[in-house]
């Protein structure tokens, strides 16, 4: 399939087979860019390592070793150390903690963003397309939600029960969806004015058809960026909750609580809080690479159409 696609799109992108739908062409273009492949490769490799390595490692990520606390990474201290990234304040292997943390953080980040995305975009699309009273109601609800500080929401929800991963996802999702609603709405509003949409309407296309077939794809790219950045932001919010004592409870490691717990040791043992940060950086950069490849592909496809 790979070869076929390559033959089809290269070298002239704009003049490619127009029988393929724009959305599909966008995918194909994105897939073929070096940035996307690179990002995809890094992200895939990270996730694969995170899923496989801890299973086959002889060490348990929650296993403490009181004698081996705060050992530095091998490139700082002892090259013969059994802990490549050093150990944390309880002598647990930091590499393992980071990898298992990556699983949970990606889970929290992605699920939260998907939740916000579905909720926010759905409302935003309807709001922007319908306008009038519906728009006003939805937008005021958005404003109301937007102006409730996350921390208040967090203590209300997380204070009631023991903070668990689903509870944290719900809090973050509830605090974040208005952003998507607003962006989706503003894109929808400028999009519905375009000729081709008007044309469709004249041709008798139903509202839902227009909304999902024509407007929704246009909403996706500008939000894709926000969404990708938000995966990162959600991971960081999760750590802020940990910082406030409202985070995921031990022994479950997440980037957030490793960083939050390691902050105390920043002056003496910088690696505890910094290593998960580097993992976070690499993860996000790979996600970002994929996202921006998408954006470029979209621009190319749009350009070809006009």
């Amino acid at each position, binding site marked *: 399939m790979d070869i076929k696609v390559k033959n089809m799109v290269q070298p002239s992108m704009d003049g490619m087979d127009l029988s393929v739908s724009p959305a599909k062409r966008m995918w194909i273009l994105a897939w073929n860019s070096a940035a996307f492949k690179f990002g995809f490769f890094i992200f895939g490799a990270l996730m694969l390592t995170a899923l496989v390595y801890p299973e086959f490692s002889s060490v348990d990520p929650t296993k403490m070793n009181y004698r081996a606390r705060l050992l530095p990474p091998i490139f700082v201290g002892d090259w013969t150390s059994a802990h490549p990234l050093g150990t944390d304040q309880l002598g647990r292997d930091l590499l393992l903690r980071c990898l298992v943390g990556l699983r949970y953080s990606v889970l929290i980040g992605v699920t939260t963003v998907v939740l916000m995305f579905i909720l926010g975009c759905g409302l935003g699309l309807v709001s922007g397309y319908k306008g009038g009273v519906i728009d006003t109601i939805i937008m005021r609800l958005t404003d109301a939600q937007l102006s409730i500080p996350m921390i208040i929401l967090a203590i209300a929800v997380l204070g009631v029960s023991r903070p668990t991963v689903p509870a944290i996802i719900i809090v973050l999702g509830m605090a974040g969806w208005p952003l998507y609603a607003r962006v989706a709405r503003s894109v929808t509003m400028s999009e519905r004015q375009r000729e081709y949409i008007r044309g469709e309407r004249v041709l008798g296309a139903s509202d839902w058809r227009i909304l999902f077939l024509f407007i929704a794809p246009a909403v996706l790219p500008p939000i894709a960026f926000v969404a990708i950045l938000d995966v990162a932001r959600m991971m960081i919010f999760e750590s802020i909750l940990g910082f*406030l004592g409202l985070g995921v409870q031990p022994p479950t490691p997440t980037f957030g609580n490793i960083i939050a717990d390691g902050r105390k040791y920043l002056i003496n043992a910088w690696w505890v809080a910094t290593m998960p940060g580097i993992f976070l950086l690499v993860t996000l950069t790979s996600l970002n690479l994929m996202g921006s490849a998408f954006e470029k592909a979209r621009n190319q496809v749009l350009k070809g159409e006009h």
Partner: protein
Amino acid sequence: MKLDRRNFMKTSAMAGVAASLPVLNTAFFSSDAFAAQNKPITFLSAENLTGNWDPTAHTALSQIIFEGFVFGYLTRAPMRPDNPDEIVFELATSMKLLDEHTLEFKLRKGVKFHNGEPFTAHDVKATFEYASGPDRPAQWYPGQCKVEVIDDHTAHVKTKEFGYPASLFWFLSAFLPIMSAKDVADGKSLTERPNGTGAFSFVKQDGNTTVLEANKNFFAGAPKVPGVNFSFVGDATTRMLSLLSGESDIIERLEAEQVETIKSNSKFKLNEAVSVENKYLWFRCSKPPFNDWRMRRAVSHAIDRDVLLDVLGVSGTASNAWISPVKFGYVDTPNYPKYDPALCQKFLAEAGFPGGKGLPKLEYITSVGFYPKTKEYGEIITAMLEEQGFNIEFSAMEVAAWGDRLYDRPGGGPGHMIDCGWATGSPEPDLVLRTHFHSSSKRITGIVDPEIDAVLDKERNALDPAERKRIIQEEVMPMLAEKVPSLSLFTSVFIHAMRKELDGMLIYPNGMLDATSATNS
């Protein structure tokens, strides 16, 4: 009016400037290059003050420390491990037990309160009678008492009417701030402005900082520094950074790693002192499964306290009793529960849960952010208990949520085990023992055990201090070791770090500070 983009940009930029204008002040980029001879001491407290200045209205350690600057005490207790019973006279010049129920204080002459009123036996009377009232929340007094004013500088504390020995005030005299009789009578001024005889007087509250100035009329001579700024900063790292960047002079509650940093920096020095605070694992004794003493023993034998101390490093020290080694009556309890997995399994089996089978999920609650390393050692304790087959749900909560759950309530407090420390600024052991283990109190554990009650009553009513000490050491502690209503994990070591230039600070084992002869250049 039509807003175009340029106007909008301009006006919004202006709004930004305008918003920040009112607070711009002349201290812009100022530095303290012209440091005076002696600067006021800025102390960062790890805990907040209560905002109600009445010393009988709180049990907050921070405020007890604050009171140490402003108020006078009849005596002071240096509480050093080598001589825990030592008493130094301050507002009193002598203390004598006249009979079983009468303690006589001779008072220092020529002492004045910050508002200019002279200090007399009437103030002692007002303080003792008010503060020992059963409705006072702090409840530091062993019971109500009456004070007889013999003359302006002699007072007799009487306890006959209330049925306990007056000797209990011997050590407590070091812990009870003396208020002015006028303030006590008025009530309102007591809560609104601290007024004592101490070396520093209250000036104002400025945000989270309480500003104090030197008391020129202090009976032992005016302090050398012009004042003290008592400031609350909740985050340990922030306190550390503040000290390191020269914003503050002395900080408290350091953890092991921070001590390392200070040690490697020649501009700062440390003070380490064994404190009056023990940290405990409290069991909810009034509900299953910990209403069974064998379950409590099983947990106690599953915990290797050496490991906890290893993680705590310098901020904890080993002790084997329910009171700190600097308190009256401390003993290395011979039968203190030791780490012994076999014994743990034996008790588990006897309680009907061999290998932990059949046990419900047990919740272990701790706080994060106030005490050093609670989350770290909490995770360790959880791991140790799970190794023995317990099924533990560990909850590390922010301080307010933890505080909500701390105390006993009818039917047993929340969770099954909870972490908390207890520090009182007096060698008096009943401030811990009776408070926590007597059935009349039920503070955290909710324990009701007639045998424990009996030894606690026997100890309190002993007339001779030597006899009382013997009962505590040979009867109370061994009994607690048998029944473990709570497990004392270790004794905290209070560590203060300060600038090298700050000299002559006297630091008490409950964290109280005496800056009377300190210099700070």
